[in-house]
């Protein structure tokens, strides 16, 4: 079965309280040198059929209308490479 990954991140201009909380905690734990952290969602979809253009188009539509809230989020859709 093929895997398609949809990454959903808050738009850059939108406040990301979770990312901020992580970023503030990192130096306290001794991890320095990280200028910014943003936290988003990752969906792994296992497709039954082949990952052709039609399938990807449908997933893009699902991402646009359902997986992401495009009022505040951006998304990317990609096919997971073999062997991962």
């Amino acid at each position: 079965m093929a895997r398609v990954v949809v990454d959903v991140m808050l738009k850059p201009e939108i406040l990301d309280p979770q990312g901020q909380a992580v970023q503030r905690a990192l130096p306290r734990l001794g991890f320095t040198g990280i200028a910014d952290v943003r936290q988003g969602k990752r969906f792994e979809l296992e497709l039954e059929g082949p990952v052709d253009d039609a399938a990807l188009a449908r997933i893009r539509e699902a991402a646009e209308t359902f997986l992401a809230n495009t009022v505040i989020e951006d998304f990317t859709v990609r096919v997971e490479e073999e062997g991962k």
Partner: protein
Amino acid sequence: MSLDTVKNAEQTPDAAQPWAELGLKQDEYARIREILGRRPTGAELAMYSVMWSEHCSYKSSKVHLKQFGEKKPETDAMLVGIGENAGVVDVGQGYAVTFKVESHNHPSYIEPYQGAATGIGGIVRDILAMGARPVAVMDPLRFGAADHPDTRRVLPGIVAGIGGYGNCLGLPNIGGEVVFDSCYQGNPLVNALCVGVMKHEDIHLAQASGAGNKVILYGARTGGDGIGGVSVLASETFDDTKPAKRPAVQVGDPFQEKLLIECTLEIFREKLVKGIQDLGGAGLSCATSELASAGSGGMRIDLDTVHLRDHTLSPEEILMSESQERMCAIVEPDKVARFLEICEKWDVIANVIGEVTEGERLEIFWHGELVVDVPPRTVAHEGPTYQRPYARPSWQDALQADAPTGERLARPTTGEGLRADLLKLASHPNQASKSWITDQYDRYVLGNTVLSVGEDSGMIRIDEETNLGVSVATDGNGRYTKLDPYTGAQLALAEAYRNVAAGGAKPLAVSDCLNFGSPEDPDVMWQFAEATRGLADACLTLGTPVTGGNVSLYNQTGEVAIHPTPVVAVLGVIDDVTRRTPVAFAEEGQLLYLLGDTEDELGGSAWSQAVHEHLGGLPPRVDLERERLLGEILIAGSRDGMIDAAHDLSDGGLGQALVESCLKGGHGARIVVPEGMDPFVFLFSESAGRAVVAVPRSEELRFNDMCTARGLPATRIGVVDGDALDVQGQFTVPLAELKDAHTGVIEALLA
């Protein structure tokens, strides 16, 4: 393009400005030029445009809201009235309580979760700004048709947002409303209420006085939130090297707000603040101009010192940003260090951004250049005022003439028919159990919640030693108000008042959120004028002053406005919360009394909606003296142990009240229809000024004597008994069947 400074504005008087895009009218723009004696700078234009918007200036509603002051009843209870962030009421023992209800309707339609969440965040900061610890929230909500697909999008998001934000702040949710009606399809109403408690000496006001005192901005960093509107300005004035899109939605961070609350309360405890204002709509523009306007002198702000989340923001965007979780305080210079120390303790970012000056101007600098130089009052308090035309709608008479008489709407005539309608009401989304929603809210946190979900009012203990407490109920019936706005608004007050009294508390004061359509429509404006007049008159009669509130206009889709929906919150006080009266029938054998008079009043009723989808006629009659008397009886009965349960009668009438009290207590009731009374009217009429109470047998005599002496009709209608609701000679419904009908309704709609 270069920065639009005051100097630049003086030198280029004819430069074109996007005042129309910013929502200003030609004469408003002319007035700004007149006030300033020159054209405004871009930053000034932004400030005036947002502060003179309907939302901030109340330009359409002000002339009507005035009545709340003019008709204010005599009372010693009001410590701070309309005009501050929220009103403050004396509840005795040195305590003061502040409460306010506000709307976040439009944002919640666009982005339900964040819109509703930031609605809670905003009202909580208003309460905090008065000097109080926020102690509870409530959420009056209106949605479109329960079975409409968009309701499935909007409702779960709004509920999750209210819960997500309120739960994370640690504020118990002690009540609210959920009403479905297709008139709210494109305009759900998200009203949010917060209650706060303080000692009298802790009251703080939003004013900047004392030249040399520092202005401190603290809380979240400032980003581009909610400045979609001003981006026209940014795009005209500036090059396009910055992100093209400015978000119109604000995202809340309840964790940041929780820190802001604890930090601010610690700052109050150490008396470090001269004046304080939350940042809400219009952000820094609003906070600085309001603080300066209410204070003694001028103010000088250096925008470069504002902590930014987005470094591409222009000065006008910084002034307009509606980034959440921020506050602005006026602090004497020698207290600044300690102030900042407390902020550091709570991980709250704080910055001195300016100071109070001798002058009378609000001056704002950017990169050393003067970009704003205005008289603050003209921005904050002297905006335009409209006398919008209004007229009784042409359709009003026909609507009122379409009364739900027996000929117009078929009424059940048999026991079977009555039973079917009772179940239809109990299982209608408007009357069904709201536990799917309320179970998502924490009602226990803080450990002082005495009454909450499923009760007539939310009640909290405010002193653990003396058991002093307060309660709040919110009500508003858009259907009644559509039929008759004057009466509808009064009924909203009457119902909230009755709900507070039913819990055993004495009603003291009112806050309101007036949700209406477009003020540019004379029909809507008439509804608004009538509703405010009705509310003001009723507050005078009942002795409960309006302490503050909010107006939300333009709730309409195209030409179609929502039902006029004034939501009224009543605050009451109770000396001993252990004497509160719950709604549940908990003791077998207790006697059930119906208080008040029942008439054939079904206009706008839940029955006419659930069974016939009909709206017409007149709403129930209002008798405020009767409401007051009923309230007195309910309070005395609770205090003196004569009543063990009480439930006010409202939508769905006696039938629905019995269903709720039986289910809540897990006991049935045997009911006898009084001699000469039509069983249908008895069960489904919504006559106002009524309640059903459970009286211990040992108290029956005393209770009857009290009602007789005071002249309140009290009819014995039955007894708490068994595990069915049994209306003798008519029908019986086992509790299990009632429960089945009443629960799971919302879940099923959303599944």
